[in-house]
């Protein structure tokens, strides 16, 4: 069982399963650093995945599907931004209700368009791209450098966003909103506008994650296709210290567990598959319980911000 082919296949699959958690986790890290919580990731993933499907079905082009999937995530997240930021309502409740709404909308429209039980249309899967030279490195090459464009993009974005957040003035401004929005406002930073921006960004990332589920993992759309990945991304965000770059490690951890349980299922190991499916959630729960304590996150996450209060 533990031969080289198995390990290579396992790690390649792990990387692929990392991506749909990594995208929303990066977005959430930015949003929470700016002091807002976007619990609606799960719903934005569903919307992204669904829009990718219908765009592919009408245009036959995956690239447009992916882009529109991301944009749909961003646009739908404006609901969260409007109620949670502009209207100052508890962001946890807003995000949770958004998830309910998004799950309803996607499964409703899916049933309207494709029928309740009918065979769902498939989507062309995204093609892997071999990076010349690098992909010929033994072992590491096929695992890291024979992935598809969206996978590369996820890792590049993690570093790029990390750079913006920690090495630029703009990133400092965003982070300052999470620590002391009023001080930031007195420096002339528009708190509300930047928070709208970070929520829209996290929605965009969640939408891309959803799009990847459709074109990179499942090859079609199913109701509740995200299956809790948006929530795992929330856990990754906290466990990886609200840092986009560290999120790679956390997301890979969950991706690995996920890929591992799929392999075990395929091999027919005598463990019930439900217990294997449970693993990522148990890992997240214990991680939050025993590592979360010492995490010093952004101070004002989820707090109500009143422009003219004290």
């Amino acid at each position, binding site marked *: 069982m533990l031969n080289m082919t198995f390990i290579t296949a396992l790690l390649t699959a792990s990387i692929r399963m990392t991506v749909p958690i990594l995208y929303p986790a990066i977005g959430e890290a930015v949003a929470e650093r700016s002091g807002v*919580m976007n*619990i609606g990731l799960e719903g934005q993933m569903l919307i992204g995945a669904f829009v990718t499907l219908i765009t592919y079905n009408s245009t036959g082009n995956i690239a447009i599907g992916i882009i529109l999937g991301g944009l749909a995530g961003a646009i739908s997240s404006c*609901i969260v931004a*409007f*109620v949670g930021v502009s*209207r*100052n*309502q*508890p962001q*946890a*409740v*807003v995000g*949770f*209700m*958004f*998830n*309910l*709404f*998004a*799950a*309803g*909308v996607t*499964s*409703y*429209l899916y*049933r*309207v368009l494709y029928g*309740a039980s009918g065979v769902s249309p498939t989507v062309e899967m995204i093609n892997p791209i071999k990076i010349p030279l690098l992909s010929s490195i033994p072992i590491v090459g096929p695992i890291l450098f024979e992935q598809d464009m969206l996978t590369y993009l996820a890792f590049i974005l993690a570093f790029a966003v990390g750079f913006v957040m920690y090495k630029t003035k703009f990133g400092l401004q965003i982070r300052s909103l999470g620590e002391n929005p009023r001080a930031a406002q007195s420096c002339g930073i528009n708190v509300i506008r930047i928070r709208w921006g970070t929520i829209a960004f996290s929605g965009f990332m969640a939408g891309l994650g959803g799009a990847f589920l459709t074109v990179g993992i499942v090859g079609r759309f199913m109701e509740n296709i995200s299956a*809790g990945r948006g*929530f795992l991304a*929330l*856990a990754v965000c*906290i466990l990886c210290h609200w840092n986009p770059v560290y999120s790679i490690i956390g997301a890979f951890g969950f991706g690995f567990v996920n890929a591992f349980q799929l392999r075990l299922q395929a091999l027919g190991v005598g463990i*019930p598959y*439900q*217990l294997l*499916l*449970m693993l990522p*959630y*148990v890992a*997240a*729960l214990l991680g*939050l*319980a*025993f590592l*979360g*304590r010492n995490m010093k996150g952004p101070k004002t996450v989820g707090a109500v911000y009143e422009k003219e209060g004290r």
Partner: protein
Amino acid sequence: MIKGIKSKINEELFTKLFKFSMIILAVIAALLIGSVFILAMGVSPLEAYKQMLVQPFLSTQSIGEIIAKATPLIIVGVGVAFAANGACNNLGGEGQLYMGALGTIIITTSDWVKNLGIVGIILGMLAGTLFGAIWGGIAGYFKAYFKSSELITTLMLNYIAVYIIGWLVHGPLMDSGGINPQSEKIASNMHLAKLFTGSRAHIGIFIALACILFYWIVLKKTRFGYNLRVVGISTKAAMYSGISTSSYYFKGMVIAGAFAGLAGSIEVFGVQFKLIENMVSGIGITGMVVALLGLLHPMGILVAAILMSSLTTGAEIMQVASGVPTTLVSILQGLIVLFVLCSFSIKRKKKVKVIHEGGV
């Protein structure tokens, strides 16, 4: 002095009326947006809403269905409201319901309880409540003593519970006599009595009403309820007055879990009689909606639960009659709460005395 009190009462009455009318407006607005979705289906919204909103109240069977569906919603809603009063968002109703149902099934199908009848019901409900309380308590304990956000831990616990149930009904607890993935059925002398024949409504609704009464008494008439509300309103105030916030977070979540577990237990005794996958799907989330729409008020929870259960019942009638998918209800629920939240941020302008001189 008297005038001041009078105006204060008017003020409170006004806010209540304002909130109530905002909820009505939110429902109407959500229904209007929902009609766009119905139109996408090629069905007349008026026709569909007639089936959804009027039809359920026209036959005893569907009225019974509304009562049957409202029963667990009320109980879960009360639990969520308890936690919310203590500043905890219990998103884990789903998992706690499943665990409650599991505890009930384990006790009631065991050899020495099987034939106990009413005593078995009581033991089963206690076990369900205990299991739910443990499941809620895990999240509460982690929040109180490890500072991990209950928002995420309860969501994780939901998934864990769903998979545990999935494993058990396919494996250890699977009825040896059947082929379906479900547990052994409970003995028929342990079924809750029906309210009236020809519907699924059962006497569990009285337990639900008792829960509401319990909620009101504990919250308004006991020291525990008072302290819980203080923690919910201001952690600082609680700390200054010597109330341990973390212990109240924990207690709030345990109570929320206990109620959800009881609801799961009553679902087993009143409706399902066995443990299956997806048996409570949606009740946990809708219970949250009920608590929010009911503004954490005892009567509000009752009314919101009936509203939600009649929407669900009506949606089933509508799906059969005109083919509009029942998931329309999720869209409506989400929209209603979001609209209500939006409207509450509209505050009446108060006259503010402008101080020209000196500090604030």
